């Protein structure tokens, strides 16, 4: 069924009895051309683009839980392409272009809202860094506007401009940045893939890989063995565990990133705002809740919850930036387990095991990358060559020295 305004009118007039489940629930076959491990944003987008761009449909997506239960439903829904380095920025700009056409492409309302994103700066050196980053964004076609204090004050009068310690000097604005309804993204991709013949298989955990003579020939699962010509692993957060089943060790640590949402408030915050003197970012959801977060907790963990000192630090940043939020009450907080790579940048690459592909190391920024991550992994699997914008995202880059160290922190995962 194709979704449209006419369809809504028709169903509305006939008691909404014609809606069908959004995807089938097939039993796994014995063999597929391609098996994708992980039915999150990246796995599902990969399946969708393999089907829609490359015409490959003999595909199964295996999900341990249900579609939308992982990090695609635990993030803060922000999209942006405001990176600095040439190994990153064209990739995230491709992702932004795909976001802009996503809803028409998958025929699903993902509530893509380009309400703008502002990174604040508080010192002259930070302004210089923002100018440099803005120029990198302009070169990649991402667009960027440098806002001075007065222009920023007109957009966000509620900021504490004259904070004694961190006065706000301006901001770097990406007007095309914004937010997206996060779980609708994976549902929409799942529906689009399913309509093209991809099997979306939930409650199916991969427990091992069938590797013979260095070639991956399939996976073992809680629902039986499934053969495959190619296998892709898209399980960021658990990459170390799943790739460990294939005998591979990764340049990745698993960490927890927390986020909070307040009660619903009247519209107050125009887009996404990030603090430049601490780690705090905030946006306002369509329901009115302030969605905010900050740093990762900083220690290895697979628990989908963090600790209170980090929450306190995030809230202190929020209070320093916009004291008005002190009256808002936090309704919920949650945590998601993320792959922190050793240079803060992701991997889309083959592995030393033939036929086994890997997408991971998305750190705390995997959501915005979902369309391009799926697009580039599909390109690599279908054509055998990495996509032009993902060429630098290699698994062996710490051996070759071609790292993508966006923050210049060196090889310590919890500092990125």
């Amino acid at each position: 069924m194709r979704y449209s305004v006419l369809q809504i009118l028709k169903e509305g007039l006939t008691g909404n009895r014609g809606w069908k489940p959004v995807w089938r629930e097939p039993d796994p076959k014995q063999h597929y051309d391609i098996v994708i491990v992980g039915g999150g944003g990246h796995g599902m987008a990969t399946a969708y683009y393999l089907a829609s761009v490359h015409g490959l449909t003999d595909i199964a997506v295996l999900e341990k839980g249900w579609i939308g239960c992982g990090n695609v439903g635990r993030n803060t829904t922000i999209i942006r392409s405001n990176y600095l380095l040439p190994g990153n920025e064209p990739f995230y700009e491709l992702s932004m272009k795909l976001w802009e056409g996503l809803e028409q492409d998958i025929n699903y309302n993902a509530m893509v809202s380009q309400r703008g994103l502002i990174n604040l700066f508080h010192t002259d050196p930070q302004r210089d860094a923002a100018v440099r980053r803005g120029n990198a964004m302009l070169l990649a076609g991402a667009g960027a506007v440098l806002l001075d204090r007065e222009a920023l004050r007109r957009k966000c009068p509620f900021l504490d401009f004259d904070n004694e310690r961190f006065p706000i000097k301006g901001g770097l604005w990406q007007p095309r940045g914004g937010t997206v309804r996060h779980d609708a993204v994976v549902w929409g991709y799942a529906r689009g893939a399913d309509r093209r013949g991809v099997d979306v298989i939930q409650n199916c955990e991969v427990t091992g890989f069938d590797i013979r003579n260095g070639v991956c020939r399939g996976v073992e699962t809680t629902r039986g063995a499934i053969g495959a010509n190619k296998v892709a692993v898209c399980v960021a957060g658990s990459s170390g565990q799943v790739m460990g089943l294939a005998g591979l060790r990764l340049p990745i640590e698993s960490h927890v990133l927390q986020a909070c949402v307040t009660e619903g408030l009247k519209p107050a915050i125009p887009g996404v705002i990030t603090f430049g003197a601490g780690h705090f970012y905030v946006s306002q959801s369509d329901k009115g809740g302030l969605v905010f977060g900050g740093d990762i907790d900083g220690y290895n963990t697979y628990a989908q919850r963090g600790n209170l000192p980090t929450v306190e630090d995030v809230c202190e940043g929020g209070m320093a930036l916009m004291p008005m939020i002190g009256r808002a009450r936090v309704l919920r907080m949650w945590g998601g387990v993320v792959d922190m790579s050793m240079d803060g940048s992701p991997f889309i690459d083959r592995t030393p095991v033939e036929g086994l592909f890997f997408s991971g190391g998305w750190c705390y920024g995997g959501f915005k990358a979902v369309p391009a991550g799926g697009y580039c992994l599909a390109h690599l699997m279908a054509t055998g060559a990495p996509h032009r914008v993902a060429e630098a995202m290699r698994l062996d880059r710490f051996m070759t020295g071609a790292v993508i160290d966006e923050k210049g922190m060196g090889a310590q995962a919890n500092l990125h």
Partner: protein
Amino acid sequence: MIIDHPLLGPRDAAEFVYLGDACLIDRPDPGDENAARLFHDYLHIRDNPAGEHRELWFHEHGDRSWLVVTRNTLTHEIVRVELARDVALARGRDR
């Protein structure tokens, strides 16, 4: 999380800075013929276990000692805390 410091007793984990896997104590020999690969693995590759994990914590807002904390990464339960110096000496390092 509360870290039971061997000298100072129970301390809030917020007083500490986290470095990572305690395998960082075992620095490879720069004279080894495979030194490039050994240092690559030492710096970048991690076991990243789900379960018990031995890791280095630095008591920055305390006595500035390095600790080896054995902690469960699924539950955050801390099962053992040792002075990193004792661990390093027991593993044959001279300090």
